[in-house]
């Protein structure tokens, strides 16, 4: 492998973009493809399918064996609100393999004593989300109960095309939320992507049960309509 190829591979991974290393096994010949370059590659169709599944593997073409090393960004969850549900949601999401960050400007809530193991940002969403670079591999859960905080993140999540956006609250609360988002210029087809009330309908009651219903809904969003599908544009 050329050092330059490895450097490109690592740079794309660091930027949370899909990237593939193609190796012809008989000759050792290699090329690195960024997501944008995949459609023009002779193996483009196979590679696109691999990016969708996130799985590396062998491809045969005209008697030649190619190994595709597929790198897709790890899926992450950003939780808006360091509330009781979040205390269960953070470990449940980590158990499912998600990177988790929790954002809440209310320092009484965003106290490390309440979240000993979580990445905790005691800031307003508008101040920290630009640095986190929301993308299609990011899930956002809005659970503060406070529109002043939730709405900032909701606008950012809708614009960034996050693959999962869930919002806590009753149907009446959600109707008001949709009105505010329309005032921001979002269309109904954008707003249909918000899952509210948040979580799969399993009649969850306790914070832990709600957390599990949210993680299950995120897994469904990822597996049924993969975030990776759109990565190729």
């Amino acid at each position, binding site marked *: *492998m050329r050092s330059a190829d490895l450097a490109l591979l690592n740079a794309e991974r660091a930027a949370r973009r899909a990237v593939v290393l193609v190796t012809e096994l008989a000759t*050792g010949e290699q090329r690195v493809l960024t997501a944008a370059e995949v459609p023009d590659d002779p193996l483009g169709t196979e590679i696109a399918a691999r990016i969708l599944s996130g*799985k590396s593997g062998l491809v045969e073409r005209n008697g030649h064996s190619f*190994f595709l*090393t597929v790198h897709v960004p790890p899926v992450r969850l950003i939780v808006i609100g360091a509330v009781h549900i979040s205390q269960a949601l953070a470990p449940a999401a980590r158990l499912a393999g998600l990177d988790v960050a929790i954002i809440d400007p209310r320092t009484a809530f965003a106290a490390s004593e309440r979240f000993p193991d979580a990445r905790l940002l005691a800031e307003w969403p508008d101040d920290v989300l630009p640095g986190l670079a929301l993308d299609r591999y990011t899930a956002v859960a809005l659970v503060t109960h406070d529109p002043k905080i939730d709405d900032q993140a909701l606008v950012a999540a809708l614009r960034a095309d996050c693959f999962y956006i869930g919002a806590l609250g009753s149907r009446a609360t959600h109707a008001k939320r949709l009105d505010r988002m329309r005032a921001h210029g979002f269309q109904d087809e954008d707003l249909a992507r918000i899952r509210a009330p948040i979580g799969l309908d399993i009649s969850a009651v306790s914070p832990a049960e709600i957390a599990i219903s949210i993680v299950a809904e995120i897994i469904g969003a990822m597996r049924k309509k993969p975030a990776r599908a759109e990565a190729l544009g």
Partner: protein
Amino acid sequence: MRASGDDVLLQAQAWKDAGRTVAVATVVETWGSAPRPVGSHLAVDGDGLFVGSVSGGCVEGDVITEALDVIGSGTPRMLEFGVADETAWRAGLSCGGRIRVYVERLD
């Protein structure tokens, strides 16, 4: 879904940038109950220091030995391990699976 922190390739790059010789091993095919999925990496430096895993520990020793040869020769090599293989006596997969591992030098 995949776990985060797939940092073997970052380590390989860091070693190379620091002037060390490096080989990268990649699981390219598995049969049966192989312990590590296709695409798993292990990086080895010229002193035999390694990060990552291709088999959860069963055949790492042999992979490292072969990787040091590849660092010397520069020619990529395909390794195969499994219960049906003679190498099983030396370094087999306790789980009964088989794996193929591609080893290449970082140039």
